[in-house]
């Protein structure tokens, strides 16, 4: 239980830290993302297009350890984190995004155990 509470706390902390990011005003998510990162618009589109499948994949992957509400937090935190990274290559698929989410979750779990 402590582990889960720490996870939720860490994800919320990540979201809070991203909230403090300083970026120009923009009318849409894609535009905001593209200003945050010159290559962000395509990446934002990619993340948005895969949001549904990624969320349910994560809900299935962590169904024995996290509640759906906690999975939403994890996925939301992951997407915010992912949007700061480099543009995925042409051959980047949802499976790769799932693997990255696992790494992200492992990192949070590991941090929470420190």
């Amino acid at each position, binding site marked *: 239980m402590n582990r889960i509470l720490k996870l939720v706390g860490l994800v919320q902390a990540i979201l809070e830290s991203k909230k*403090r990011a300083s*970026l120009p*005003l923009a009318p849409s998510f894609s535009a905001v993302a593209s200003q945050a990162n010159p290559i962000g618009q395509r990446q934002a589109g990619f993340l948005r297009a895969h949001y*549904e499948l990624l*969320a349910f994949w994560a*809900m*299935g992957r962590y169904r024995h350890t996290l509640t759906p509400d906690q999975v939403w937090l994890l996925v939301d935190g992951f997407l915010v984190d992912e949007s700061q990274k480099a543009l995925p290559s042409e051959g980047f698929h*949802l499976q790769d995004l799932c693997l990255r989410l696992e790494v992200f979750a492992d990192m949070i779990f590991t941090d929470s155990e420190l």
Partner: protein
Amino acid sequence: MLMEKNIHHLHSQRAVEVPGPANQDRPKVLYQAIMTFVPSLRAQTYLIAIIKVFVFSPVANADCVATDRQELQRTLKASLEPAEQDNLEIFMTILDGMKEAVIHYQLHTPQELDELLQARKDSFFARWCSQLQQPARGKYDNTK
């Protein structure tokens, strides 16, 4: 066994029995998953109906879910083209997630699942946009 049970479910479950456009091609995320990972299933409406039964059927206990999952996975594997079988595990994990959401949020229909997901998605991206925009006012907006 699963097939027989599912035929019974097809006639007893509100989720897959509800006629009309409200549940046609829903939940959308299921069809999105099918088109992404196992597109050959798209034409097999009977299998899609069985998948919906698995996702939306009430849960007696965890053992039943595990058994149904195994049988569904076997059924799908036997129906998929060889090239798609590598994607079956990730597809099944997505189905697990959908079922988890149905149980946790007490959803009854594919439409409700779609609505939940859309609401979550809209909320997240709106919040994200808002969060990205808010700090910018002080730094970039010189009109005040």
